[in-house]
């Protein structure tokens, strides 16, 4: 009797589980398929770019190139006037500088918008998003005239500034959310425990905003390194960033060189973010070690 009861209980629980897990399993499969499609969409073009970077001749409809060569990579990684290395380093420098600048300004604007109430706050918040609404060409023309007048046209500083302006709305949008989430609770606690503002800023506020700072810098860096038209106009063609050098090869049809440039672009971007991630982890580990080294 007791035995049949337990068997029955086991059966119901088994069927119960089956009926409840079925939609979950289906959802999981669906999720995996979607993720697989996403990975394919990103991976297939990347692989094609990577193959083109080393292809010498790849006529249609061959599945693979007939011959390989290092011609593209040699050109991209060689220094001097015709090479890509100088422009690559310039792009990384401009990208990091403008990412740092717009994230700093964005963080301050976000703080004013998210944590303080003052007259004109809503208008100010709207103004920070205006660059989203103004077409890039219109903006570029106007900025070029202003920069020519104040002597910033054709300079690296001018390009850094204009990239920062373009990426600023993204920085503000990212920083507003995280600043609002972090609030002032921890800062208040630190102040009551004797922390003056520089300590609060570096020990409490900055660490709590760190994920946002990283996302914002990533976003702004990518926006900067992929600017073509603005860089060309404001840099007067004299500030030759990677995107500027890459563009003629894309339109000119030398796919080997274009592929090599594209591949280098991707690899350096990834490398910079792996490096910053590792650096951040190191810094955190150091911080703990400093306190526990007896």
């Amino acid at each position, binding site marked *: 009797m007791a035995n049949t009861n337990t068997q029955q209980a086991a059966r119901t629980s088994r069927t119960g589980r089956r009926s409840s897990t079925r939609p979950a399993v289906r959802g999981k499969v669906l999720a995996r398929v979607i993720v697989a499609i996403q990975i394919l969409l990103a991976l297939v073009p990347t692989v094609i770019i990577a193959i083109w970077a080393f292809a010498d001749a790849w006529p249609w409809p061959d599945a693979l190139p007939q011959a390989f060569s290092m011609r593209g990579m040699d050109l991209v990684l060689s220094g001097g006037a015709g090479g890509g290395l100088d422009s690559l380093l310039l792009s990384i420098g401009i990208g990091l500088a403008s990412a740092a600048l717009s994230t700093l300004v964005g963080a301050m604007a976000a703080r004013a918008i998210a944590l303080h109430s003052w007259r004109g706050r809503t208008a100010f918040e709207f103004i920070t998003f205006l660059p989203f609404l103004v077409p890039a060409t219109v903006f570029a023309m106007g900025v070029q005239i202003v920069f020519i007048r104040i002597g910033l046209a054709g300079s690296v500083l001018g390009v850094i500034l204009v990239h920062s302006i373009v990426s600023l709305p993204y920085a503000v949008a990212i920083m507003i959310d995280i600043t609002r989430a972090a609030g002032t*609770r*921890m800062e208040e606690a630190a102040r*009551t425990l004797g922390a*003056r503002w520089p300590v609060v800023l570096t020990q*409490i506020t900055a660490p709590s905003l760190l994920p946002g700072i990283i996302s914002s810098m990533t976003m702004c860096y990518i926006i900067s390194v992929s600017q073509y038209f603005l860089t060309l106009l404001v840099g007067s063609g004299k500030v030759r960033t990677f995107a500027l050098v890459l563009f003629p090869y894309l339109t000119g049809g030398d796919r080997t060189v274009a592929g090599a440039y594209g591949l280098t672009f991707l690899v350096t971007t990834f490398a910079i973010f792996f490096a910053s991630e590792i650096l951040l982890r190191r810094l955190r580990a150091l911080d*703990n070690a400093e*306190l526990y080294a007896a």
Partner: protein
Amino acid sequence: MIELKDISVKRNGASVLDSLSLVVPSASFVSVLGESGAGKSTLLSVISGLLPQDSGQVLFDGEVIDDVPTHQRKVAVVFQDSRLFPNMTVAENVAFPLRMQGVAKEERLQAASKTLASVQLEGMEGRSPSELSGGQRQRVALARALAGNPSAILLDEPFSGLDESLRDEMRHLVLALHEETGTTMLMVTHDAREALMMSDEMAYLAQGRVVQFGTPADILQHPAAEEVAASFGSTLAIEGAVENGQFTCRKLAVPAPGCANGPAVLLRTHDGSVDVHALSGAEANLS
């Protein structure tokens, strides 16, 4: 000693604190009881300097400190939501006020361990705040407030996020630490039992004003206003003990003449009468 003189705070045109005056004697434990919205937390923010008052003065030991910034006031706050720094370990959190005072690393970590032991959290030094339970987090917050040796500790509903069983344990711990360190403590709460049991003196706050100030026994037996009486609920029962004609529970001491020594219950009924019933059967009528 903390003194508040005619403190007024307005927010969006509405009065939050309305010329409030209050004295917290040195080394005492004072509670501010009131419903939410009565201005209790605002009161603590004014004392800690996080929120400047619109008018009135705050005095520490007779000196006006209105222009002293928060970080120099030496009043630590224990918040309802702990507010432990997530990027620091438990020991780093507790050592934080000492670090702000420029205490050397080794010394401050030793002190942190000692303070952690006093809140029964030995061996938790290396943990991250996210690994702790709510009760443990609040103990760390308490240890962190104590570690800097502040002249006063402000407690903002410190137990309201905890289970009832934990709450009583924490009340006991806070009182033991108060006695041990002699630090002035000002606690804000909406729990009348808590205020009655823990305080040397207590204030009832409503609409930004002190309605009544006195000893817990006084306020329990002679509430000055309807709303003070209402804060005790329809019936209030506090378990304690009677010794030589006096009922005590933690700090609450109410005379209970004729009541037998031993465990007893203090009962306040909806009609306002306060009786002590010895659990052995004898009874004392107080009103």
